[in-house]
């Protein structure tokens, strides 16, 4: 589920951070820039794992900050295709099931990757699986579900448009037409033995 990724970067250490030990200041700065962010083709960054190399601090003209070239490793959330994970059902629609994990929400199980003989029950707003004639098993919201990763999708998004001087300018004309494509999403399947609600198989 988690991997280590090696990056190199040139970071800017603000003079206010000079009072801290150098490595602490660097780790804090990297975490500021990377934590909880998705990097195209890499995954969801969690936090710094370790620093590999730290270059000499350089001062550029007109700026009191130090610029340091560093190599470091990050803990990144990036499940491999075929991995089996557990999460919670956040919503059911006729198109499929949305699954969330506490720190990552963009997991979707499309209808055609659900169990055979399953159907969407609009009255219950839930998916129902009939393994045989008599049984009806419901996949309700907030239940713990086990699923297999089938596909990963990265979407390179333009940077957020923010106004200067801290005023986050709302883009009223842009937001409604953009349904919010997530930068990193996972397509999962829920077929076969051991999949589906965790409670079924215990």
């Amino acid at each position, binding site marked *: *589920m*988690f*991997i*280590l*990724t*090696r*990056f*190199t*970067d040139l970071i800017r250490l603000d003079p206010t951070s000079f*009072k*801290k030990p150098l490595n*602490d200041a660097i780790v*804090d700065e990297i*975490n*500021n820039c990377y*934590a*909880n*962010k998705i*990097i195209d*083709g*890499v995954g*969801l960054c*969690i*936090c710094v*794992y370790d620093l590999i190399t730290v270059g000499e601090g350089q001062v550029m003209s007109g700026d009191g900050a130090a610029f340091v070239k560093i*190599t470091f*490793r990050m*803990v990144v959330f*990036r499940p*491999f295709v*075929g*991995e*089996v994970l*557990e999460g919670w059902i956040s919503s059911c629609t006729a198109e499929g099931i949305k699954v969330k*994990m*506490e*720190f990552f929400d963009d997991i979707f199980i499309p209808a055609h990757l659900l169990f055979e003989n399953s159907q969407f029950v609009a009255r219950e707003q839930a998916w129902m699986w009939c393994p045989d004639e008599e049984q009806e098993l419901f996949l309700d919201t907030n239940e713990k579900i*086990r699923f*297999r990763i089938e596909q990963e999708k990265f979407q390179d998004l333009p940077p957020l448009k923010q106004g200067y001087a801290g005023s986050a300018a709302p883009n009223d004309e842009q937001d409604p037409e953009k349904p919010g494509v997530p930068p990193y999403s996972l397509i999962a399947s829920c077929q*076969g*033995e*051991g*999949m589906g609600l965790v409670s079924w*198989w*215990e």
Partner: protein
Amino acid sequence: MKVEKTREALLSNFEVLAHVRDQERARRMSQSASAASNQGTSHAENLETVIYELKDYLNKSPAASQSPEAITLFLQKINHLGLEKAERLQLINSVPTSIVSLYSLIEECDQRYNEDQCEEILDAIRTTLVSEEDAIAE
């Protein structure tokens, strides 16, 4: 920013949780040190958010009660079966206790392993990775 190597290593849930806990301890230490000298350090909101959510998830997972010794012992026990690295990682992360969940984690399990071998894997899991409280709960 340059990505040098995307998948340098795979981490188990246990390793991630241990790392996060270590980091937090270190941060609390430095925080109390800086509070003593009256220089409050504020930490990034994005980091706090993701760490909080991640811990919320991992503390409910089997990783919360594992130890490096238990994992090493488990790997030694199943070493001779020739499982793939990704499969061993998944066994440690999900800790299957039934044959059904074992089948879902190991590819073509019925062709590669006979019933005795599957039982052997489950047995190794029960004796090493399942903590005592969990075993009683079952």
